[in-house]
């Protein structure tokens, strides 16, 4: 067991636990976007920043990737932390203003203005869908492409992937696009799954397990109508 102090409260956690898990185990809320139980920690959204250390050596770290250490002093809601979090969520809001998740988080953190140039992205590059696809669906159909400003999530060469089983898991976990169905604009769909109005899951037995997240599923509804 590791003993550390969170917001002045002594906490004991298993070895290997992250600060996020330690704080949540005693009920201190830490907002997150890219973190998801069952997926590996990624540390992309920076929303879960907490302050570790004391005095001049205190610094901000992402709690989802920082392992709990013996006698560590953590503050999850100091003025510095809240200031950093407000800035982070304001930047996310500037890139993805339509996301209900991000809007709610911004509102909860007290962001009342939008100082940055508004963009209309539909992705904050949190990597949830990429990890979902690789770690939970064992498919590895989508991933990050490019770097810097042109970094994006999608399939190799922008072609429908052979590895994609159209499960919809990527849409299900996305905090930015929120199950927004894009089947009328297939070229904008992440994997082109919705564009395929053939019911892939029932007709061809290419996959041992479908593990489907589509709800409602366009393909299944069409299949039901045909019956």
């Amino acid at each position, binding site marked *: 067991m590791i003993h550390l102090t969170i917001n002045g409260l002594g906490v004991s956690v298993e070895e290997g636990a992250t600060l996020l898990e330690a704080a949540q185990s005693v009920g201190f809320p830490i907002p997150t976007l890219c973190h998801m139980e069952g997926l590996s920690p990624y540390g992309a959204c920076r929303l879960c920043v907490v302050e570790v250390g004391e005095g001049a050596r205190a610094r901000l770290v992402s709690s989802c990737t920082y392992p709990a250490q013996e006698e560590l002093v953590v503050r999850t809601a100091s003025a510095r932390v809240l200031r950093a979090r407000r800035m982070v969520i304001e930047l996310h809001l500037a890139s993805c203003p339509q996301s209900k998740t991000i809007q709610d988080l911004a509102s909860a953190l007290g962001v009342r203005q939008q100082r940055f140039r508004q963009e209309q992205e539909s992705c904050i590059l949190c990597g949830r869908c990429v990890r979902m696809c690789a770690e939970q669906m064992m498919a590895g159909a989508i991933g990050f492409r490019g*770097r810097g400003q042109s970094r994006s999530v999608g*399939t190799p060469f922008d072609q429908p992937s052979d*590895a994609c089983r159209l499960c919809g898991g990527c849409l299900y976990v996305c905090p930015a696009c929120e199950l927004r169905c894009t089947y009328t604009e297939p070229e904008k769909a992440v994997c082109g799954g919705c564009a395929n109005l053939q019911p892939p899951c029932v007709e061809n037995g290419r996959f041992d397990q479908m593990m489907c997240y589509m709800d409602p599923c366009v393909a299944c509804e069409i299949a039901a109508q045909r019956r």
Partner: protein
Amino acid sequence: MDTMRGDTIGADAPDVAAIAAAHRGSRAALIAILREVQAARGYLPEDALRAVARHTGRSLVDVYAVASFYHSFSLKPRGRHTVCACLGTACHVRGGQQVVEALSRELGVRAGETTPDGEFTLETANCLGACALGPVVVVDGRYFAKVNPGKVRRILSQARSGVAAPEAADGERALVTEAVCPECGRPLLDAARPIDGYPSLQVSAQCNGWRGRARISCVDGVLDGAPENAAALERVRLFCPHCSAGLNDLLRCGECGVPTVSVLAGDGALVQMCGCGEQRVRRAEVEGAGARREIAQLS
């Protein structure tokens, strides 16, 4: 699962298979494998990426992510000549952007693109490490110094006719036949005391408290005359015997990894010598004594 990942591109890309086999299909060697595939094919075509994914046991999207992340990998065919203009801070303030625009106008393509005839690929770099020579343009490995938009056309015509190969061809060895100190310009070659029948370079050396004169073989770059433990150039500081300017170069030898010694050869080429006999030549255009002093700052 593997059958459905399906490699619809039929041909098995035997060259890629051989490269992957040389790295034992290691997942960790992905970048090395991609570099070799690019060297063999000129760029990274889709079938090659699929083959790499298959041979390394990674998903295609992993390989694609790496290939699209690094600037040095190209997913599109590249031109016969690569023109790389530096846009680092030093080159930028001296008009690097205008040079890029001139190149772009002259070639009719934007940075990162290849001319339709497949002759030139125009690239920009964020720093080429030759700031004193800026704005720098590198064509097929040859450095052109202090480029301005007016010089662009001449550089391109030179590139079409083929810039002098900066390194010795197979079976040949770059031999320093004329060498001067990059700082003071005085000769370093001493014909009176040859090593292996060729004039040797005379230098001052300092190592572990020992100081004295030493000589470097022009043939293989081996140091002679210093104490035994100083035989490796790595631990020896070398100086010009005339002006005491340091001759050790920050660049390391690509073969043995030891820091090189740089001298200026007669035609303005900066020659980096090292103990393994692999002498690399970085060409810099020399125009008058001013440029010569700037080359010295490189080393």
